[in-house]
């Protein structure tokens, strides 16, 4: 797995991981606006609740795929050797992400939890990014 990732990234594992994580972070910052429009908390002239909700799900799906890719690269290439806060935030992030997907799939009364899970996820995305990619870029 380690060699496959190194081959796919042509030896630039850290750089590719930082770029992907930064794209995820940027998209994660766009999600609350779409959610606010979808829930009717923010009213925009050019965007109604239904299309905002559709885009929120589409972007969320993209974030999910990219996050899993970054996590696989992170775990198979670096394992837990650097560990620390980044590993804790990363594991919590994956757990909350899985929980949110589960709640979206189950629907019903649990849907009330989605805004809270969304805010929690944004916080975890920020903490995970700052403790790795942000640190690498001199932001964290």
């Amino acid at each position: 797995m380690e060699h496959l990732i190194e081959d796919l990234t042509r030896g630039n594992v850290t750089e590719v991981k930082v770029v992907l994580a930064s794209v995820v972070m940027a998209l994660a910052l766009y999600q609350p606006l779409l959610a606010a429009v979808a829930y009717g908390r923010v009213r925009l002239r050019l965007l109604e609740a239904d299309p905002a909700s559709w885009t929120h799900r589409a972007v969320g799906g993209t974030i999910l795929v990219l996050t899993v890719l970054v996590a696989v690269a992170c775990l198979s290439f670096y394992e837990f050797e650097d560990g620390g806060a980044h590993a804790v935030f990363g594991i919590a992030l994956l757990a909350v992400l899985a929980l949110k997907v589960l709640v979206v799939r189950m629907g019903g009364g649990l849907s009330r939890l989605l805004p809270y899970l969304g805010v929690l996820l944004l916080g975890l995305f920020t903490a995970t990014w700052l403790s790795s990619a942000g640190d690498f870029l001199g932001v964290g």
Partner: protein
Amino acid sequence: MRRPPHWAQAAGSLLIALAIAAVAIAVVTAHFGPTASAELEAREERMEQRLEFREERREQREEAAEERAESGGNSGPG
């Protein structure tokens, strides 16, 4: 003012997401500069070639000097 159809709203918001991703890629890639390993490998390769070339020229000079010394030794009294 009439709102655009839903598909246009969805396409527009998706385009914004794509633009956000593109800006993130551009900013982070610009931050790396020429430190990508492909660039570093190319630089190392060029340096190795230069060193090999120097080494070859040094060996050639040494061989030429040895030949001169040998031929000089043969022509002397003995």
